[in-house]
């Protein structure tokens, strides 16, 4: 195999993975269920395949490994992290995430179980398969509780429930769904967790040879119940040194017991009256444009860093860009009820001095359903702060100027 045939397999990339791989000079092999012409021309080897048929994808990868010198299998798509790990193991790559670690993070019931059993984070939880089972299980909880599917993502079907009836309804809703967002069967074991009261953050970190370094801490804004929709992120959030130590210890131990040796991770945490607790662990860079915020503030591009680590790189030789601003924030637009969108959208065409990026997924006058998860938000704006004004303040001002209403 010649050097010119060094390639990276990309599995259903979510963001700019293809560009990152091309920038490093590798051939690009793309696996996706459906590939349009534009994407077909943007890679070297486009392959349409049912990604839920993992055995078939692995077989195809083994065939490709005979033709190409495959250096890594890469995606930032949460749902496909285990498949990437499975392919990596099948073709003998040793630098990335193990399949077991990927599964431990992807499946929320496994995460909870491992964290609990290892005493790293003993959040009270129970697994149920039916609304009837929940009635008995709820005797150990006080309300509110969180009900969530074990293997979905993006806050889909995650509910904060105040009563037994709401729990029954939330479980029934998950059971009615049958499949998750990408068509995989919903895990029959549904999580009921104690509700953790307190502010929520995410820790963007990198683990290399089992040693974890925090790159940034993101402050999150979540909607009020019943839906847990992320409506804003701000970087950086500066913790007290005591909190920083606690958080660093918590996530280092968590990643260790989950089996993560080499990866960029996005760990969602909350500070409660009983201390810091983990909401979930993702074995990939955060979504929701968090990598963009982190790059503005730290110079690290988390996706680029994830690829660098998948290729066996270290933090010392990691690519780093100029820092652009002391703070950065994203705010999402949501429909608080179903109805017609009224919005002053001029900012999306004319810009704003502190607006880094913005996207409107709907048109003024369009009829939209209520936003119920991260998947049906209406758009976003990203602002960067200055030495005088924090990005969170600027982003809220921009948000206000949009005068978004749903009638």
């Amino acid at each position, binding site marked *: 195999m010649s050097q010119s045939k060094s390639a990276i397999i990309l599995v259903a990339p979510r963001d700019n993975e293809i560009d990152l791989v091309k920038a490093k000079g590798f051939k690009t092999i793309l696996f996706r269920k459906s590939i349009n012409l534009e994407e077909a021309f943007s890679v070297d080897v*486009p392959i349409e395949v049912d990604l839920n048929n993992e055995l078939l994808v692995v077989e195809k990868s083994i065939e490709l490994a005979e033709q190409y010198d495959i250096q890594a299998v890469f995606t930032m798509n949460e749902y496909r992290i285990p498949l990437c790990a499975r392919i990596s193991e099948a073709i003998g790559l040793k630098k990335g995430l193990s399949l077991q670690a990927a599964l431990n993070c992807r499946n929320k019931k496994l995460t909870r179980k491992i964290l609990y059993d290892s005493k790293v984070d003993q959040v009270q939880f129970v697994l149920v398969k039916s609304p009837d089972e929940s009635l008995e299980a709820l005797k150990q909880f006080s309300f509110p509780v969180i009900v969530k599917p074990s293997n979905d993502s993006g806050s889909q079907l995650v509910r904060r429930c105040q009563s037994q009836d709401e729990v029954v309804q939330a479980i029934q809703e998950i059971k009615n769904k049958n499949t998750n967002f990408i068509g995989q069967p919903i895990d029959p074991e549904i999580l009921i967790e104690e509700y953790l009261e307190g502010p929520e953050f995410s820790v963007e970190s990198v683990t290399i040879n089992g040693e974890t370094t925090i790159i940034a801490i993101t402050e999150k804004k979540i909607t009020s119940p019943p839906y847990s929709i992320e409506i804003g992120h701000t970087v950086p959030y500066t913790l007290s040194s005591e909190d920083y130590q606690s958080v660093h210890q918590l996530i280092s131990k968590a990643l260790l017991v989950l089996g993560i040796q080499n990866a960029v991770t996005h760990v969602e945490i909350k500070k409660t009256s009983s201390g810091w607790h983990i909401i979930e662990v993702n074995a990939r860079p955060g979504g929701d444009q968090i990598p963009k915020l982190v790059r503005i503030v730290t110079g690290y591009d988390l996706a680029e860093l994830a690829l660098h680590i998948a290729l066996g790189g270290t933090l010392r030789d990691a690519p780093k860009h100029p820092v652009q601003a002391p703070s950065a924030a994203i705010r999402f637009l949501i429909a608080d009820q179903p109805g017609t969108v009224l919005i002053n959208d001029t900012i999306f065409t004319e810009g704003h001095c502190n607006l880094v990026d913005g996207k409107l997924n709907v048109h003024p006058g369009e009829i939209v359903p209520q936003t119920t998860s991260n998947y049906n938000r209406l758009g976003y704006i990203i602002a960067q702060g200055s030495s005088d004004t924090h990005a969170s303040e600027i982003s809220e001002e921009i948000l206000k100027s949009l005068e978004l209403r749903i009638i």
Partner: protein
Amino acid sequence: MILVLALNNKLQKEFDTFFTEALEGGVLSERDRILVILATALAMEDANTLKNAVLTAKQLGLTNEEIGHISAITVAMRGQKINGLASFNVSTSTNKSSKCCE
């Protein structure tokens, strides 16, 4: 969807056999076959066949530049045909007294 040919089961089966042999068998190499399919899909303006042909072509190692060249040949051939649709003879003579020698 029912294909019209399927109304005659025997002919449909014969067509399927012929189709498979033409596209997947025969004397041409896999690479040559996909070049022809690509050019045909372009000429027929069949977007779906074109997409599938591009995927296969790239899996066989064809580059974007090579696919672009096939497109250029198709465009050139079609262009030549269009150009020929309105052909007529134009006299280049400007000598109004040319009949004087007749």
